[in-house]
């Protein structure tokens, strides 16, 4: 630990990146198309009766989650993001689900007669 780790900026990384980028462009277009398709799919599925309202909500949320995942993973480059960003997001996800889940639980378990 006596030698401090280097903190010098890296410069040549960018060239490297630019090369990669051109390969991705096609991918972005495909993902855009997929998203449009999923949008049409949700609209369609919302007119299909899955038995209960709850089931319909669940189906729609699954599709929305897939779409959101695609946006985050591809457009927001989470597929190639650094560990640190993941850490921040994991905690955020835990807390936001904690908020939903605990409020739901409190709603579900009141003192009633």
């Amino acid at each position, binding site marked *: 630990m006596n030698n401090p780790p280097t903190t010098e900026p890296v410069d040549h990384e960018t060239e490297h990146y630019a090369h990669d980028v051109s390969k991705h462009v096609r991918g972005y277009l495909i993902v855009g198309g997929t998203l449009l398709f999923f949008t049409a799919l949700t609209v369609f599925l919302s007119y299909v009766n899955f038995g209960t309202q709850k089931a319909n909500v669940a189906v729609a949320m699954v599709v929305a989650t897939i779409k959101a995942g695609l946006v985050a993973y591809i457009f927001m480059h989470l597929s190639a993001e650094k560990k640190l960003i993941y850490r921040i997001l994991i905690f955020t996800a835990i807390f936001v689900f904690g908020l939903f889940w605990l409020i739901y639980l409190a709603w579900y378990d*009141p*003192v*009633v*007669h």
Partner: protein
Amino acid sequence: MTSLAFINELMGMPGNASAHGYQIDHIIEFCHWFMGALFVGWSAFFIFVLWRFRKSRNPVASHEGVTSGISTHLEFAVVLIEAVLLIGFAIPLWAKRVNAFPDNKDAILVHAIGQQFNWNFHLPGPDGVFGRRDAALVSNSNPIGLDPSDPASKDDLVVMGELHVPVDHNVIIELASKDVIHNFCLPSMRIAQDAIPGLIIPMWFKPIKTGTFEVVCGQLCGLGHYGMKGTLVVDTPDEYQAWLKERIELSGNQSAPPAPGAVPPAGAPKTANPGGG
């Protein structure tokens, strides 16, 4: 156990007047002993260290400091005691408060409706059935919005401010509120519960002492909050019957007259603020 309780008395806790109250007192007194022990222990250590290691007595500090694992043991002990209090006392006690409601048949069931700034009590009357209430029907002469078209409401009693209950009987109070959140708090009975508009929340207790007790509103509800005082009178069974009879007679010819508790407290504004804020 009584000898342990002196810590609560020392701090001014009033006498308990309900059947479950002693359990609440126990958990508070255990907490206080536990906290007291930690506080005294740490304080003794603290004062000793400040004296022993002051600069003039200990000019050169030790780089290492304490190496023993004493703090780990201490922390473990704290965890253990808290776990015992939690699992052994607090959780079961709460479960009994909110799940083990006494049977309606052998309990006195009362509805309490909070408003800025007093309590209305709704009793089912001789037929034992509560009449329907509707917010749209609320008026000055009908403070809880009792529906006169409902046959069950004909013999219902509405009393303001003061509630009588017989001693040694389970009492269930179903709390509601017309406007903002209030809290029906009976310090002597060791019981309290929020009255939240839109919800009806029950609470129960069993008074074991006769007497007159204050009902505190334990939630800020506006400018008259400090004076929102109710009265709980715990009667002997005979007195209770007499009170009930008197109430029924009164309700026969006029709608409920203001009970003592409904008189605005000294210093309360004469005209209420429309916002109530």
